[in-house]
């Protein structure tokens, strides 16, 4: 049997609520600076929740010099284009006409294709009294917009990015709610291992920071309503936590075969060593209190990486700051880490940048790679009152220097999809 291909992370790009590139995002996460504030994307003043973690002062045109392409892109597509451009530049390699078919693309894509203004137009023509009448679309003056239709397709982001970067191999978009980004990277890892591509651009993008997205989570009661103190609203694992804060953004990684990365002299942040995913099969809304489901995902990922749980020095938790998720995740960490649960550092960077939904797993994977490179576990901000149900070794107060042999990143999605990724320090690999 041929030995399994080892996969290296050689490029990173991010657009997040705490920075419009990887460098500033990572610097601000280390410093524990909050990206949470009153919502400015739209007039949220009448909503029960008026806070979010928005990407700020973002100018896609500054990064992507292609006005025609940007017209086809939604706001989260633009985040994706910018983050992917940064990742490819960082990796120092990109698809060429000669090898575009050996490049693959996987992405965790958000679920929202239609924006509020477009929906308002449909309401005006088809539902003057609120009830939808299809014939309204046939009105002569209905402003049919083929660009809006194009942008609304589930794989529109994939289409834009593969076209812009010339990626012509395996390509897919996945959506498992909050686990999407993690699953996209896991899929990329497997495509590389089975030799269906030599390079992958993999990541996630999302923005539900719009009237329908915020409304949807308000209805579920999943968001923090700390409207007067946004900076402290996301406090994962704190006893007083009361919901997550909606974020937006994108994260992309360049993945390639370890040996060829070394051969071309690429810098390697970390090995993407293992992927595990499971279904909780519990309830659509709730997390299993005993961690069943997440436990299997973490165990599978560790086994897949060919390491033991004893080598894990840092956990980038899903840590949404909802009562149930954090409790369930801690139960899973206790079950997997056993006696080492007091030693392994845990933090949720959602404390600073909110929940990026379909992009969360991808951005947090990038954070793990940077944490390994710099030997720093980023702070779990806003933590003050311990919760006995969340008795894990949180990175309190400020970020902590620590040599990380291996890190894991959890992404636990609505509907019970759980994803776990394992990253290894290059020094441990060689």
């Amino acid at each position, binding site marked *: 049997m041929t030995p399994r291909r080892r996969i290296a992370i050689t490029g990173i790009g991010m657009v997040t609520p705490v920075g419009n590139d990887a460098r500033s995002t990572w610097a601000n996460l280390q410093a524990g600076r909050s990206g949470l504030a009153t919502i400015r994307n739209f007039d949220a003043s009448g909503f029960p929740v008026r806070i979010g973690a928005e990407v700020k002062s973002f100018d896609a045109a500054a990064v992507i010099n292609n006005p025609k392409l940007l017209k086809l892109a939604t706001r989260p597509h633009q985040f994706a284009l910018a983050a992917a451009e940064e990742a490819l530049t960082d990796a120092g390699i990109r698809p060429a006409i000669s090898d575009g078919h050996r490049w693959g693309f996987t992405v965790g894509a958000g679920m929202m294709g239609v924006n509020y203004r477009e929906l308002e137009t449909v309401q005006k023509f088809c539902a003057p009294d609120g009830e939808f009448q299809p014939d309204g679309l*046939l009105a002569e003056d209905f402003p049919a917009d083929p660009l809006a239709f194009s942008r609304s397709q589930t794989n529109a982001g994939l289409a834009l990015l593969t076209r812009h970067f010339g990626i012509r191999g395996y390509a897919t978009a996945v959506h498992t709610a909050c686990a999407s980004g993690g699953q996209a990277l896991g899929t990329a890892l497997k495509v590389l291992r089975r030799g269906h591509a030599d390079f992958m651009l993999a990541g996630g993008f999302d923005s539900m920071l719009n009237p329908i997205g915020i409304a949807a989570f308000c209805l579920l009661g999943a968001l923090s309503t700390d409207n007067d103190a946004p900076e402290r609203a996301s406090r994962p694992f704190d006893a007083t936590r009361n919901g997550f804060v909606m974020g937006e953004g994108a994260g992309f990684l360049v993945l390639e075969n370890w040996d060829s990365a070394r051969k071309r002299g690429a810098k390697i942040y970390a090995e993407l060593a293992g992927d595990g995913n499971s*279904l909780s099969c519990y309830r659509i809304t709730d997390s299993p209190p005993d961690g069943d489901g997440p436990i299997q995902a973490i165990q599978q990922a560790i086994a897949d990486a060919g390491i033991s749980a004893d080598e894990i020095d840092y956990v980038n938790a899903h840590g949404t700051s909802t009562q149930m998720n954090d409790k369930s995740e801690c139960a899973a960490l206790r079950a997997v880490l056993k006696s080492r649960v007091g030693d392994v550092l845990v933090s949720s960077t959602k404390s600073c940048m909110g929940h990026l939904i379909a992009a969360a797993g991808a951005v947090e994977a990038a954070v793990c790679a940077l944490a390994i490179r710099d030997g720093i576990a980023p702070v779990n901000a806003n933590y003050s009152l311990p919760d006995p149900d969340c008795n894990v070794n949180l990175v309190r107060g400020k970020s902590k220097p620590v040599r990380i042999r291996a890190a894991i990143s959890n992404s636990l999605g609505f509907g*019970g999809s759980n994803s776990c990724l394992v990253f290894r320090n290059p020094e441990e690999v060689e």
Partner: protein
Amino acid sequence: MNAKIVFTGLGAVCGAGKTVDEIFDAIVNGRSAVAPIKQFDASRWPVRVAAECNVENKILVADRKLHKSISRTDMFGIYAADSAIRQSGLPAHRETLDAAATIHFNDRSGIFAGSGGGNYYCNYDFLPAIAAAGGDLKIFGGQFTESVNPMWLLRHLPNNVLCHVGIRQNFKGANACITNHCTGGALAVAEAAAAIRAGEADRAVAVGHDTPFEPETLFHYQRLGLLSPEIVRPFDRDRSGTVFGEGAASVMLETAADAQARHAASLGEFLGSGCATEATGVFGIRPDGDGLSQAIQNALADAGISPGAVGMIVAHGNGTHASDASEARAIRRVFGEKIPPITGFKWAYGHLIAASGILDLVLALTALRKKIVPGIHTLNFPDPEFAPFPVSKTAQPPRSDIALVLCRGFGGMNVALLARANP
């Protein structure tokens, strides 16, 4: 050497029938489900036909409580997956296991879904609140909770089939929900098989489901010139576009060793998959079929077989000018002058978008098990531009027991699947 992976269950529901046999019977008897749309009043619309699936909700999903918390597309997906899993006999097999073995069984059982996701109807639940707000977002923000169901988001999650099939069947292993326009279902099969090959799961169900013909979708597809006002005629000189269908299909995959050990019937064998994008944007398509020929080559390499081994091709054949023409060129590029018999099934059940490729696979296996390549019933004048091109109005004999199933979608996406049918 890869572990041999077999199909032990097939499930399908669409306009042409609610079982695989019913659908196959419609195909071989030349019955098309394309008919005037009933789900909404389309009498004034330029396109008024689709292959609607009129199976009642209570037959799709017996648990009526669940009807309120899922969408129509989810009903189809759950029904198809349940059908495939039931046929495999796996639930009955699980009953024979002890407690520890049952836990292991569940943790090693995967689900891969291809979902249409992100449709329009779901947003219309907000229309009353938008109407009441009269353009003032502040009013909307204060009022929407009065008219929208608190569980709105959960009803419309693209990954609902994954979650609910998981809960119903207690399959807790490797999983993915693929949202890649038409290729979601076909890629679900590819990823399910890859997970078993890589040892991440012992078995997995793949399912694709979609309900694409909402008024807004119909409206935009029609304006893009993609829809026929009457019928799908793949590879015909007079083809005029595609027609929407709806429904779902599913396959249960497991290792041949496992199936044999529990004496389950193997309906066929998964051989390989290939996937490539043409990098042409959302609607673009290359005239030379480059991405499709690449996907076919990748699938042949993955399966370790030569083009000559393929016994039949189930083409994507969506009946649009550009797609059929480039598909014919891609097939010729790979197979040269030795093209096996080609067919396509969309004339019978329409284009199911995310479910299309996996439904075609289910019917391809069924056809090859009966050793026939069904004819394209609506084909009158094979386009001379492609000649010689082995499509036929009547049934043809297959060249071998191996089927190549092709699937294409927006984003320049192309997927090819190879499977062998067992008699």
